[in-house]
């Protein structure tokens, strides 16, 4: 039988994504076998994150400073805002290293069944940014990098409609064959989208 302290640790670990009760036990054991090299540094890192990491008041990103490092970066193109569903989508775009504009993290998509309406997402903040850009005379482009799902694209159309009065350009990411993808492994929906978005090369 494990002590109350260990059981408590296992219970919390088991709540994390990808970990069930058994794997949480394994993780707890691995941590306690390496108290100085793993357990204490992890505890310190968790405390530091809990104390310092906040949601950016401008874009919804996570950072130890508010506004976040992306929003404060003077090298960033302030005329482009890329709208993403969640912070991990922002991280994916940053990993690509090809986008140098700003971001706006919505916090999800519109979903009637899950009870997520416009008020539950950071849409008001996006509209405020578009309004501020218009007032400052900045030619703003909003890039919608939302999931290619019915909910993602419905949210995209809703945003495009709400952004229209601010006169900004609204674009969305292309849809089709992924890099490294082979035709015979693609689903019918992706093939249809790719055919519709085909580009002439000659």
């Amino acid at each position, binding site marked *: 039988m494990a002590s109350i302290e260990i059981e408590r640790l296992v219970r919390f670990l088991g709540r994390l994504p990808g970990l069930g009760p058994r794997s949480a036990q394994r993780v707890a054991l691995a941590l306690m076998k390496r108290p100085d090299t793993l357990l204490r540094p992890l505890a310190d890192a968790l405390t530091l994150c809990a104390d310092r990491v906040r949601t950016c008041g401008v874009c919804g990103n996570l950072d130890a400073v508010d506004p976040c490092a992306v929003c404060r970066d003077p090298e960033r193109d302030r005329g482009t805002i890329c709208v993403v569903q969640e912070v991990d989508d922002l991280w994916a775009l940053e990993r690509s290293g090809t986008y140098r504009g700003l971001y706006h993290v919505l916090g999800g998509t519109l979903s009637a069944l899950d009870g997520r*309406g416009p008020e539950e997402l950071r849409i008001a903040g996006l509209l405020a940014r578009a309004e501020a850009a218009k007032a400052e005379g900045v030619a703003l482009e909003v890039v919608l990098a939302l999931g*290619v799902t019915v909910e993602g694209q419905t949210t995209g*159309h809703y945003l495009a409609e709400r952004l229209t009065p601010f006169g900004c350009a609204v674009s969305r990411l292309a849809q089709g064959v992924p890099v490294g993808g082979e035709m015979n492994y693609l*689903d*019918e929906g992706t093939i*249809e*989208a790719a055919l519709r978005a085909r580009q002439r090369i000659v």
Partner: protein
Amino acid sequence: MEWRDEGIVLSRRALGERDALLVLFTPDHGRHLGIVKGGAGRRRGPLLQPGNRLEATWRARLERHLGQFDLEAIRLYPAGFLDRPRELAALASALVLLDVTLPERDPHPRLYAALLALLEHLAASAPDWPAAYVEFELLLLAELGFGLDLASCAVTGEGRDLAYVSPKTGRAVSRGAAGEWASRLLPLPAFLIGEAPAEVPAGEIAQGLRLAGHFLNRHIFEPADRLMPAPRVRFAGLWHPEEEDG
């Protein structure tokens, strides 16, 4: 216990980290729930999009169990119109109405056929898809036991000059019989009683949505103390901008 049927995805929710709880609308087994193993993953994600038409096999040890779906694609309709706001809004509205109004495991083959026809219209971007949508909602009301009687005038019994619908009885009223009560009646768009033109004017579609929306609220949502689903409000708002926030 096992059956095979085709069906259209109404909605999907994650069940744990890997699986999904799918709501499928089938012709012979109605609105049916089931678990899809691996349904929350990337590989199965595109298959489980709302509006997709799938071949389904449902298995469970007992009929009353939730059971498990095995699925294959027949046609992934929404991929064809994800970039068209009105069509996508119509799809979301039709699916959520079915999902929140139909009881489980109650077959409605006529409604299934109407939904399939609507999906075909939407995918083809046929000019009469908005009319097909309004007719779908009126059929939904009829299948739930609240059909409108648009064949003859409730006052005179005649089938000519029908122009209004009583908001209380759901019966048509002719222009002549309406008289001074006309302002209290709901306008009856011409395409619902005569031969619809290839492209119904937007004003008539708006009237049709108002008509169906009134009776959906009166018979389905208000008695259950529920609001009209947001996708339906949003879709109607595309034809009635003033209803966007209602």
